[in-house]
């Protein structure tokens, strides 16, 4: 090896706790930063792909504050409040994390432990909220009809979106019953049947002249979804293929299926980061309590896991903007 380098060094004093530290940063800290750079690129890959797809469907993309409108335990529409709350939780847990690092510099073991504990709690509240948000999104709130040419038709009264249950009456007319395990030949269960059939929705639409159909298309001047005339609406509805309730990777009552795919993928990947951050925080928390870093003489490990935790917060700031605000 010596032949290949201009200035021979035995490397003993680089990053082994000795005096030489490139950029004045320890090995662990520097590698955490470089990991964060690569992870940031992964996330920007996702968000940029989201941007590409949104630009591709710019005239029909779901409007985010019409999609995420719920708050736990409260009925009604409150766009964005809950996501804003989640953002606060994450920022606050970032603060307790820096305070832990700060207390570590002063070698205050108990303070570090308490701040780490608060950070873990903040993380748990965030993932819990995320789970609730997913659950609400998967269940859906209004219901829609998907047509044979892949469009989503939503229903409205006086220009405001209403749920299928607000106007659909009568019986299914297709006499389909959900096939459950207990009456199946091989104890297999069938696919979940939506509450209503397309024929039933169409009949209810015809019966009530106040119902309008809201298409996916956006009026780009007003940035509002276009509401179809009664006749045009009926023409679209006759192409109805299935009733959609909620969202999954294949259908999405809020509009473009790929919107749901990106929602699951991006917030899921971020939620997974939060989850692993919590696990790492718990490990470090116990190390603090056991006095590992007290014996080591410094709390740099808390600082390194802190970097990761702040990065998770940093990513959320961008997800919040590009998924919910813009």
């Amino acid at each position, binding site marked *: 090896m010596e032949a290949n380098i201009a200035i021979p060094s035995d490397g003993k004093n680089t990053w082994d706790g000795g005096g030489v530290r490139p*950029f*004045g*940063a320890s090995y662990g800290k*520097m590698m955490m*930063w*470089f990991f*964060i*750079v690569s992870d*940031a*690129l992964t996330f*920007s*890959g996702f968000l*940029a*792909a989201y*941007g*590409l*797809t*949104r*630009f*591709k*469907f*710019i*005239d029909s993309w779901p409007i985010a*504050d019409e999609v995420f409108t719920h708050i736990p335990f409260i009925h009604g529409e409150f*766009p*964005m*409040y809950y996501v*804003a709350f989640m*953002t*606060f939780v994450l*920022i*606050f847990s*970032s*603060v307790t*994390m*820096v*305070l832990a*690092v*700060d207390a570590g*510099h*002063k070698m205050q073991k108990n303070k570090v432990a308490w701040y780490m504990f608060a950070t873990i709690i903040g993380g748990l509240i965030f993932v819990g909220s995320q789970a609730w948000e997913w659950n609400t999104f998967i269940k859906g709130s209004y219901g829609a009809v998907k047509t044979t040419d892949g469009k989503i038709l939503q229903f409205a009264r006086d220009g405001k979106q209403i749920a299928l249950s607000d106007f659909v009456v009568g019986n299914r007319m297709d006499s389909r019953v959900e096939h459950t395990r207990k009456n199946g030949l091989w104890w297999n269960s069938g696919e979940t049947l939506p509450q209503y059939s397309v024929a039933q929705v169409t009949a209810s639409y015809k019966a009530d002249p106040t119902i309008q159909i809201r*298409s996916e*298309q956006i009026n780009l*001047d*007003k*940035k509002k979804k*276009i509401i179809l005339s009664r006749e045009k609406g009926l023409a679209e509805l006759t192409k109805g293929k299935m009733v959609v309730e909620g969202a999954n990777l294949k259908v999405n009552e809020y509009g473009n299926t790929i919107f749901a795919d990106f929602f699951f993928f991006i917030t899921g990947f971020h939620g997974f980061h939060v989850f692993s951050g919590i696990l790492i925080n718990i490990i470090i928390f116990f190390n603090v309590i056991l006095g590992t870093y007290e014996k080591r003489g410094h709390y740099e490990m808390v*600082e390194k896991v*802190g*970097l990761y935790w*702040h990065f998770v*917060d*940093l990513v959320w*700031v*961008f997800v*919040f*903007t590009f998924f*919910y*605000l*813009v």
Partner: protein
Amino acid sequence: MAHAHESHTKRIWNVFWILSLITIVEVALGILKPDILHLTNFLGTSPLNWIFIILTLAKAYGITWAFMHMEGEKKWFRRSVVWTAVFLICYLVTLLLIEGGYLFETLAPLVRW
């Protein structure tokens, strides 16, 4: 680091209040969506979107510089991280958004509403 044992508690809370304030402004604008900002166009998107993007970058700066303590790192260490990430992300985003716009122009005329 020379100031390793100094307490930064006050500064940490200051940054927290600034970040919270920015978030409140973002949410308020996101709910109100004033027509003059939302329905007008400025450099390819609405002024509202530009406000959101700028505020987001301000928050990202606060988190990176204060919370992640980038301000205290050596200049070239900071640059090796920040410049690399910022350059690559701008590059990627520019290409993909241009491509997305092209896809829309090409495909949208084929969709019958």
